[in-house]
């Protein structure tokens, strides 16, 4: 613990990242309180104040139908974070379990699971998510499913590589000798040794899920209006460059800040947990 704190203290970027992430999570959670115009998260139209550059009332300007951009970014953060948690909550347990089975049981299991994983990893992530979204209706739920479907193989591969190395270690053999069940060996003996790597990857991935979800909606295949979403806000604004620059620049910066924050924390976590051995 002390070692962890001293690494943390010597790394100002990690501290900055932690603060950034805390700030974003807090802002998203308290959006109802902080947002100047909470009703602007939905389908509100205010043609008097449309497309206004940033000023004292609208600190990031207003969009094409007069909604406060700052408000919409706060609510978009909330949805992005929820999506990120949901994607990881499904794909990590699935991916980790498959990785443990393939790595520890080996043989037929290893062959089948790892070949299927190879197939999923052979399609560029964005293209796979796009084609799944293509056949489904573009809703929040389906967007989450599409991203989840492309996310689990990365955890399978990560855990598989660790588990394959660990299964010949003394402590695993010892557990096997005293007659521990295969489930016990996988989840109670090997899994704890995968946790640092999994945690580090999850932190980094929170940022990358936000990134990929915003990419989907940027292409018009993700979260649909009037639900606020950072990607579709950038797409909408890109048509009005350079005059209405705030329309796309602020949502773009919002994506950058969130992903940057999670990356800094993930990097720091890797140093502290020594996950990349």
């Amino acid at each position, binding site marked *: 613990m002390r070692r962890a704190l001293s690494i943390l203290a010597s790394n100002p*970027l990690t501290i900055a990242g932690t603060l950034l992430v805390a700030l974003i999570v807090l802002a998203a959670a308290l959006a109802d309180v902080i947002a100047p115009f909470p009703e602007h998260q939905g389908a509100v139209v205010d043609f008097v104040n449309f497309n206004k550059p940033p000023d004292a009332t609208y600190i990031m300007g207003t969009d094409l139908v007069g909604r406060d951009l700052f408000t919409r970014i706060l609510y978009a953060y909330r949805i992005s974070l929820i999506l990120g948690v949901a994607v990881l909550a499904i794909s990590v347990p699935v991916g980790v379990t498959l990785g443990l089975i393939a790595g520890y049981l080996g043989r037929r299991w290893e062959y089948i699971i790892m*070949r*299927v994983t*190879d*197939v*999923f990893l*052979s*399609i*560029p*992530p*964005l*293209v*796979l998510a*796009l*084609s*799944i*979204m*293509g*056949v*489904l*209706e573009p809703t929040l739920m389906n967007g989450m499913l599409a991203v989840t479907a492309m996310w689990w193989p990365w955890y399978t591969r990560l855990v598989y590589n660790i588990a394959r190395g660990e299964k010949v270690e003394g402590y695993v053999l010892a557990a096997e000798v005293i007659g521990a069940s295969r489930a016990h060996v996988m989840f109670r003996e090997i899994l704890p040794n995968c946790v640092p790597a999994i945690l580090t990857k999850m932190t980094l991935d929170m*940022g990358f899920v936000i*990134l*990929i979800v*915003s*990419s989907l909606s*940027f*292409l*018009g*295949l993700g979260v649909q209006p009037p639900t606020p979403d950072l*990607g579709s806000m*950038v*797409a909408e*604004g*890109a048509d009005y*460059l*350079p005059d209405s*620059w705030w329309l*796309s*620049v602020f949502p*773009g*910066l919002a*994506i*950058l800040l969130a*992903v*940057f924050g999670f*990356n*800094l924390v993930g*990097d720091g976590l890797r140093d502290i947990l020594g996950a990349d051995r």
Partner: protein
Amino acid sequence: MRNVLSQTLRRTGTSLLVLVGVSILIFAIARVIPGDPARVALGPNATAEQVASLREELRLDEPIVVQYLAYMRDLLRGDLGVSLYTNRPVAVDVAEFLPATLELILVAGVMMVGLGLPLGILAARHRGRWPDHLVRVVSLLGVSAPGFVWAVVLMLAFSYYLGWFPVAGRIDEQYDDLRHITGFLTADTAFQGNWAAFGSAWHHLVLPAFALALSGIGQAARLTRANMIETYERPYIEMAEAYGFPAGRIARRYAFKPSLIPSLTIIGLDFAAMLGNAFLVEAVFGWPGLSRYGVQVILRKDLNAIVGTVLIIAALFILVNIVVDLLTTLLNPRISHAPGGRA
């Protein structure tokens, strides 16, 4: 060398298997579409006969296994079916749009390696000091935003405010009737000796390629830095330092090559991922590549075109990874991908 050859063959074999798997996956995704795919594709105004004839054409009334086998039989003859969006064979569409995308990706890939590796080396040589911190922040920023955000930012700064680069397109309008040979405009213009058009093509290419390359540059720099630092701790580097070799020579000749090998795999993956990320950059810069086509066919639920496009992208993706594997083997004879061999 024989080892390399047999390994390539084996690698190609497994890759073909993976590609068959990809085709099954994509085919399955395209057929689980809720509702009648033919009705969805033709829209609500189509007549019952039109829907019935499309159902027959797509063999939708037969079991999915039969549909798949028939599709694969056509595929082996180079027939990807007809796109419902353009009414042309999917293979023709892809052949038209792919070169623009490949040109973009190749230039971005060169930028990724050409800028990412030197930045990583610089950071490793000055680790703990300001060049290191600067490279770390810059590369993290590069990784932290999707291509379309960089595209918007770069376009705003360099095209609109500074006016250094054109806003959209592949080449100035006056060269539109230029003869296409390869579809790579930089190559086509050079073949025809039209240097003004050649310059115009590059002028249009630089900014989108850089937007696409940014996250790869960051990734490459971070990896190279981490691997270089690990190599710097090896005894033979210490020995070279003790002999008083110049730091630049140590970095280039002794530390860089062993550090490159682990980076290469990830760089290859990043390069291949550009096939997907190009979708985002192309959309901002109005780049007439595979992206606009891909998004259109997905929005229109054009099944043949979706399956065909994804298959071709996956095949390219796998090809890139085979090449990278080969390069790592050539660079480091100790790595053996043979079964039972020690990696």
